């Protein structure tokens, strides 16, 4: 048998010492339970803004701010709910994350129901009603809304002017298609059309959802039951399939958040793109070449006189139910989200308009924006704020969107195979959506969420 000295070489001893020391450190290190007045956020811009406000208000000792990636925040949040791991008192979350936190019976949701406090302080009336949609389960509200996020359409004003596009004549999507076809020519004779009117493609799921919502369709009703098979959804899918694969497709697959998509927007290959208020700042940072060349117009309506905007994204601030400092956290949350100072900072730092209607008179929203050719975009977004469609949270949101996007992809394939008759495709869309509805309902029934919805 070898002696211990032969087995434990200097390298072996070093490894053993490191293992023992690190094990000991893990064992004795202090518990990293978050401070009771701690805020977790996923957005770097938000974290910076809150830090500045907290410093200005001199409440650094009252609130710690931790920036986490969206996935890490979700893991920690769900970990807290599933296993009672420590949670921050205030958690800022995005709407898809919230839907996951809201799964299951209402009483098991790990956030405090803020509806009584909002009602008692008259905040239910002063906050834009649709902004509560993603945070509402039945008659309970689990967060203070951070935003409204209306959507407008950016367009290359320089190119539109060059081709004689009359933006003022665009009220509906039909007008849009007719007017914008003026740019669809091959001026440089390279065998390719130089400009496509709109940035849209099969992988643009957020844009698909916002268009369905604008058309009066969408994924879930107020009771969180699927409504995939609506006529509005079918009509929307038929039009979108025409944009992608009609006889004269008008869409270029230029995603705003990819390098390739941005290069198409900069070159003008894709002329228009959907832009919610939060994206304006991103455009400014990622595509500075477009400064002074783009403007925003309200979304063309699906019918004359119908809704001229939609909604994209959303964030809320929630209070962890198990935290014993509910009153202090509520006071901090109100100050961070609802004070006039934070509303101004929100617009200045990130271009996001406040969800509180009383703040909309602030002249800051009338500041001309040179990036958008001097447009007072804050005021334009506010003018659309009360038109944004309602959204309802469901943990099945992504599955529903998957099914709708599959139906769109099927229609695109059929168009490419030669079927271009819109009436036939509308029938096909209705059948596909009915099938999607049945599939989703059966998945929800399998998991038990349907029974829970019935109980709600």
């Amino acid at each position, binding site marked *: 048998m070898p002696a211990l000295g032969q087995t434990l070489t200097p390298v072996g001893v070093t490894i053993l010492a490191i293992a023992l020391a690190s094990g000991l450190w893990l064992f004795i290190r202090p518990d990293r339970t978050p401070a009771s007045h701690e805020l977790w956020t996923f957005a770097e811009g938000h974290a910076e803004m809150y830090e500045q406000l907290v410093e200005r208000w001199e409440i650094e000792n009252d609130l710690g701010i931790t920036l986490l990636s969206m996935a890490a925040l979700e893991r920690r949040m769900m970990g807290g709910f599933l296993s009672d791991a420590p949670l921050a008192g205030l958690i800022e979350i995005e709407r898809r994350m919230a839907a996951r936190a809201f799964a299951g019976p209402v009483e098991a949701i790990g956030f405090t129901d803020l509806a009584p406090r909002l009602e008692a302080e008259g905040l239910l009336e002063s906050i834009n009603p649709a902004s509560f949609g993603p945070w509402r389960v039945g008659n309970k509200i689990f967060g203070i809304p951070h935003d409204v996020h209306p959507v407008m359409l950016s367009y290359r004003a320089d190119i539109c002017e060059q081709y004689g596009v009359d933006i003022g004549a665009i009220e509906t999507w039909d007008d849009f298609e007719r007017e914008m076809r003026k740019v669809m020519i091959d001026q440089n004779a390279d065998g390719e059309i130089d400009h496509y009117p709109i940035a849209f493609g099969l992988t643009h799921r957020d844009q698909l959802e916002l268009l369905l919502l604008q058309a009066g369709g969408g994924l879930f009703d107020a009771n969180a039951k699927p409504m995939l098979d609506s006529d509005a959804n079918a009509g929307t899918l038929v039009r979108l399939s025409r944009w992608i694969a009609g006889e004269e497709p008008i869409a270029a697959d230029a995603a705003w958040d990819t390098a390739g998509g941005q290069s198409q927007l900069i070159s003008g290959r894709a002329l228009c793109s959907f832009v919610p208020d939060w994206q304006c700042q991103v455009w400014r940072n990622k595509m500075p070449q477009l400064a002074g060349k783009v403007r925003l117009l309200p979304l063309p309506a699906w019918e004359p006189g119908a809704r001229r905007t939609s909604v994209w994204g959303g964030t809320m601030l929630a209070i962890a139910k198990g935290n014993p400092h509910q009153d202090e956290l509520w006071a901090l949350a109100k100050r961070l989200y609802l004070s006039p100072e934070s509303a101004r900072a929100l617009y200045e730092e990130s271009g996001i308009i406040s969800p509180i209607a009383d703040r909309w008179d602030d002249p800051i929203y009338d500041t001309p924006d040179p990036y958008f050719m001097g447009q007072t975009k804050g005021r334009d977004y506010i003018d659309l704020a009360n038109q944004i469609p309602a959204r309802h949270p469901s943990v099945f949101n992504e*599955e529903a969107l998957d099914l709708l996007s599959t139906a769109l992809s099927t229609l695109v394939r059929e168009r490419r195979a030669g079927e271009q008759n819109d009436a036939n495709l509308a029938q096909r869309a209705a059948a596909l959506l009915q099938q999607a509805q049945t599939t989703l309902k059966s998945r929800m029934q399998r998991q038990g969420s349907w029974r829970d919805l019935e109980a709600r």
Partner: protein
Amino acid sequence: MRQRASAMLPLALPMIAIIALFAAYPLAISLGLATQRTFGTRVATDVGPQNFLDALADPLLRKAAWNTALFTIFSVLVQVPIALAVALLLERPRLWARGLIRLALLLPHMVGLAYAGVFGAVAFEKRTGMVNRALHATFNTDLDLAWLENAPITTMVIISAWLYIGLNALILRAAMGDVDPARLGAATLDGASPLSRLRHVTIPAIRPVLGLVVLLSVVGSVQAFELPYVLLQGGGVENRGLTVVTYLYQQGFEIGDLGYASAIGWLLSLVMLALIATTALLSRRSDA
């Protein structure tokens, strides 16, 4: 003998404890979970084998299984022969810049799957992606070839070949070092062609390592998750790139049905065990 075994038991105890704590216990928990239907954070109902029955009848899981099978088969068919060819190339005595080639072969593996997914998403993008640009410049193909939408499995096979061929080639090259030079020399003297030497001398000599490379490729491909997750953000258009583990993740962590996800995990484990057993059996038969 019994005395020796009882003397060795105390030495093995720490390892047995570690395996019990970190492998056996979680497996037992997961088996229990597979018989529950979970919804939300606090609700679980016992459903017996229903999750397994549902999984067997789930069309989306079948699609994911089909995609995974295609990815596995084509990954192995592409990776192993090319890795073997590269290993033979590295065997050449007067190979120029051998060290540099080895480094170049290993580099993709060093960056990892997540990076490969991000890189692949940019490289295979329509119009601006490197792949479409190169194909357009060389063969005048359409710049808008939709790799990620229409052919996600092919794209994943290409990316995973880029990642793993180098590593597999180096493993095979190391195994080739053990081939008896006398046998190779004898075969050469007997007039065997290079292909015959490969078939009758080299491959039989490296068969155990070759089997291991195939097995690792199969197991890695069956477990594909990071690549489709980053590259396609899930299953891709019409779930054409949905793999079993991606589906498991969606059900467990996005929908919150941990019971169903556990059942899928157990079914996948059974399939992998069957694959490993089959490989071992085939290898034993061919050795005999």
